[in-house]
């Protein structure tokens, strides 16, 4: 292994690599944010919605969770262009990952809300809080706290799923790496670099997550 030559190549490729990493991060962050917002809506529909609403959302949820994320990405990519919505691969990919994220966030949040003891709602009612007030001041804070570990997990899963967007042509880190290797054939070295980046990102998410959990924990 020729380190000097490798580092020279690495240096030459630095901008491409940084762009690739940047794209991976943009995809992930965008999908996480949009997916979480959608996921909150999903959870609220499942817990407080009317019968039809709950049924529709439940069907949607089971379908999304039953298919692999790769199939979701491919389906979004091909289907959306067929439906006349002209999306770039990036946009189609983010849509797919957003839907994927929302299914996880929705299910987790629903679980967290349902796990809250009934006594909390009763105590809130007893002092005269309206449903909106009960949800905002009593239920949501507790449910969100409960849902943080699972959410951190989902975020890491999304970063890992972003790699699949390379298959539909989005130039994120994996595709960038492959492109670089096509020019400067050092597969082991460049894949190692890419692997380290993914490891660092996911590991940091996990670490930050645990720190956040500790900060949020109630004193006992």
């Amino acid at each position: 292994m020729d380190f000097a030559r490798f580092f020279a190549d690495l240096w030459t490729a630095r901008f491409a690599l940084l762009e690739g990493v940047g794209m991976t991060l943009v995809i992930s962050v965008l999908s996480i944010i949009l997916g979480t917002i959608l996921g909150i809506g999903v959870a609220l529909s499942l817990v407080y919605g009317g019968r039809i609403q709950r049924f529709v959302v439940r069907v949607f949820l089971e379908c999304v969770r039953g298919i692999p994320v790769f199939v979701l990405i491919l389906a979004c990519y091909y289907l959306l262009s067929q439906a006349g919505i002209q999306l770039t691969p990036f946009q189609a990919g983010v849509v797919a990952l957003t839907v994927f994220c929302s299914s996880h966030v929705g299910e987790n949040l629903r679980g967290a809300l349902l796990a809250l003891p009934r006594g909390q709602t009763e105590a809130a009612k007893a002092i005269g809080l309206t449903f909106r007030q009960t949800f905002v001041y009593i239920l949501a804070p507790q449910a969100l706290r409960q849902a943080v570990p699972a959410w951190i997990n989902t975020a890491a899963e999304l970063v890992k799923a972003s790699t699949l967007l390379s298959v539909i042509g989005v130039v994120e880190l994996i595709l960038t790496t492959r492109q670089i290797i096509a020019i400067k054939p050092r597969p082991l070295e460049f894949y190692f670099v890419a692997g380290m980046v993914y490891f660092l990102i996911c590991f940091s998410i996990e670490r930050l997550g645990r720190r956040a959990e500790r900060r949020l924990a109630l004193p006992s």
Partner: protein
Amino acid sequence: MTTPVLEITDLHKKFKEIEVLKGVDLTMATGDVVSIIGSSGSGKTTMLRCVNLLEDFQQGSIRIDGEEIGYTAAPERRRRKESEIARQRSMTGMVFQQFNLFPHMTALGNVTLGLTKVKKLPKPDAIAIAEKWLERVGMAERRNHYPGQLSGGQQQRVAIARAIAMNPKVMLFDEVTSALDPELVNEVLNVIKSLAADGMTMLLVTHEMKFAYEVSRRVVFMNQGRIDEQGAPEEIFRNPQSKRLAEFLKNAKF
């Protein structure tokens, strides 16, 4: 003739097909302390929970200070709007068997929440009232503690402060010592006794017979969804008229 503070008339309630309350009548004047005793399934907790509409009821009426609770008067009998019901609920205060403190708020936070969000008091006023009542139940020193840091008895006392700080017309106690370790029961009972001595109107469901005997002005014995007997503690405990009550008291080892 002054309006009774609480007037329950011909209360009927069904759970699915089973009738749990079969026509209950109860009247309370301001300052009354009424204990409800009876075996599990007698409907006592259900009746209590109807008063602040945590349970709905199909027939009968409940009036607090003359105001119809939960439903408009017969024959119309329409369920009131949720915001209306929320307001009516703030006229009573309830203390639960499982305390049900909000774990993500301090003791002070638990007490001030209703004052700021329901009574819409400004924060400093709310804090002042909250601190007064926390002091009253002996929890002033721990006002910045979270429920997770408090013992069962301490939590229940905060729960009492939370309910009473709302200045309710009637305080409802639902077996508030049943979930406590024996050595913590007395600290809570003593707080309730002193509140009663101050003239608070209270309706208590309890298993603590000795306590009921000491603190109540009237004791009500419920059996299978009806009030079998009611009267002064002396009468009920020393001189039970109905056979069921006598049997119940024997088993309760009073």
